[in-house]
């Protein structure tokens, strides 16, 4: 019991909303609902939900880098694409036997993280920050998109894997879990749903522990005032780089899950539109908190899909408008603005308190 309460204390802190028994009971209720959901739904809808879930990892990574660390990365899709293509190249060449897809997942995420470490080293140790960080990261993802788009010729192959230019790479195997008496193939829907849901819970709780640790303290200090943080004796470049790599690895995880889910990845997953969407998801919900980011991302994705069905390209215009409205009217995010609106009549405000 003592160990359990110690564990819960590490999940809570000044950097996350939601604490105390009420929040965690609510968390368990939502989790139980999510676990029961496939029992009441058809395969297609469950598969569609998995598709939503795969994006959340990238959103949580951006929340960490931008919302907590204060560095706007406009190029999370670069790591998404690198990991997605890496998964395809590895599995097409080495197959899916003996649970190799899981090895490929780990390698693909590691490749994305390594690329982020290299890029981040030059960015942060070169003291590039603010809008320039956004410009450089966006440029990187656009360059990767352009590069992959011109790989249509047969000479662009790595082993058995054709890169296929703008048509994209396809026919990589889905994820499989090695299991005695026959591997479990995580082909959309239910099995994959549970695996991705489990990953989501682990990543969400892990990030809560991270941001409420002393590392998280320094991260928000850098966001608030980098000079002061350095003048307390912290090498802020290392913390920024570490955060960037973790965020990139999460974008990479999204990339692998997306690629294995649809058995397909194209250069446009690293393009301008794709790069802008994570920023909308994270900003609209409220980027400075993991829970609001998670709720915001799921909500915006659901709205986006509903709009796409009815109005195809107009959905993107609505997304853009949503971002503008958020930035102008509720810069800290719509969930925070709503909470403030609801709390206003009940709050006994002291002058000068927030």
């Amino acid at each position, binding site marked *: 019991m003592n160990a359990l309460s110690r564990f819960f204390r590490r999940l809570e802190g*000044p950097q996350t909303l939601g604490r105390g028994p009420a929040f965690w009971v609510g968390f368990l209720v939502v989790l139980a609902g999510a676990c029961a959901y496939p029992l009441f739904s058809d395969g297609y809808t469950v598969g569609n939900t998995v598709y939503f879930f795969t994006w959340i990892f990238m959103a949580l990574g951006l929340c960490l880098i931008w919302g907590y660390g204060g560095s706007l990365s406009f190029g999370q899709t670069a790591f998404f694409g690198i990991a997605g293509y890496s998964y395809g190249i590895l599995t097409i060449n080495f197959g899916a036997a003996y649970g190799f897809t899981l090895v490929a997942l780990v390698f693909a995420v590691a490749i994305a993280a390594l690329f982020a470490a290299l890029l981040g080293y030059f960015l942060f140790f070169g003291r590039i920050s603010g809008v320039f960080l956004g410009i450089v990261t966006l440029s990187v993802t656009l360059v990767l998109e352009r590069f992959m788009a011109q790989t249509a010729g047969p000479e662009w192959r790595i082993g058995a894997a054709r890169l296929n230019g703008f048509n994209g790479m396809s026919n990589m195997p889905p994820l499989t879990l090695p299991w005695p008496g026959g591997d479990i193939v995580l082909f959309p829907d239910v099995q994959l749903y549970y695996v991705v849901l489990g990953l989501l819970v682990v990543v969400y709780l892990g990030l809560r522990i991270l941001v409420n640790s*002393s590392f998280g*303290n*320094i991260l*928000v*200090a850098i966001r*608030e*005032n980098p*000079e*002061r*943080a*350095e*003048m*307390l*004796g*912290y*090498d*802020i470049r290392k913390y920024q780089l570490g955060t960037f790599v973790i965020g990139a690895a999460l974008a990479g995880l999204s990339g692998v899950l997306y690629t294995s889910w649809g058995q397909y990845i194209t250069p446009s997953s690293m393009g301008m539109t794709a790069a802008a969407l994570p920023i909308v998801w994270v900003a609209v919900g409220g980027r400075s908190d993991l829970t609001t980011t998670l709720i915001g991302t799921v909500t915006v994705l659901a709205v986006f899909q509903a709009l796409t069905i009815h109005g195809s390209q107009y959905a993107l215009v609505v997304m853009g408008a949503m971002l503008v409205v958020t930035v102008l009217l509720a810069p800290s995010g719509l969930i925070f603005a709503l909470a403030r609106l609801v709390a206003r009549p009940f709050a006994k405000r002291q002058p*000068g*308190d*927030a």
Partner: protein
Amino acid sequence: MPLLETRALNKRFGGLHVTNNVDLVLETGEVHCLIGPNGAGKSTLFRLILGEHLPSSGSILFGGEDITAFKSFQRIRRGMSVKFQVPGIFKALSVRQNLEIAMQHHYEPATLAEEIDRLLAFLNLSGDARRLAGNLSHGQKQWLEIGMAISLKPRLLLLDEPTAGMSPEETHATGEMIKRLNADGMTVLAVEHDMAFVRQVADKVTVLHLGKVFAQGSIDDIVADEEVAAIYLGQTTAHATAHQQPGGLHA
């Protein structure tokens, strides 16, 4: 051995010679004030000592170690600490969290909360621990930042206009606090305009003018120096040339 020493320190920004051959010696245990008219190069010298600027030539020694090429955070870890002129606090975080961030690597987790409480009491901020730092009054923000600076238990405390924007009462209280910290063994270097404050705390005063050390001595020597009074009144050009030769009171 002096705690801090700058040797023939120079800093040029393009054609502007902002720090001109400055030799400054800070003995362990003293309160040293850096004064001078606007544009004298006080802030630049301060930033050179902190490592925010790197000098064009010359060297900086701290505790006998050459730290000229060190990054700011490395200097802080060697035992420097700084309070900026504009309060450098984490505005969107609580007062308590501000101190926690400053202190978390200097104390065991078990004693951290207790140490934060003690410092909050020292700063007279116990009742404001849960408030956002950005919502404090101006004086309280200054106190909070001084608290963050001294929580590192530095050997050398650097203060950039610590009393800017404070009332005379707050200024006096700040001076008393600095004297108490100094009595506990902290060496202090302060950039300051307020001469009453300088008189209250300083063991030694260095006057900068046009990037050079213009005069150095006790506060009484400095106040008695007519040429120092003259540069503050603006009669600068005639006297600046008169001070080319070293010797006497003038470095």
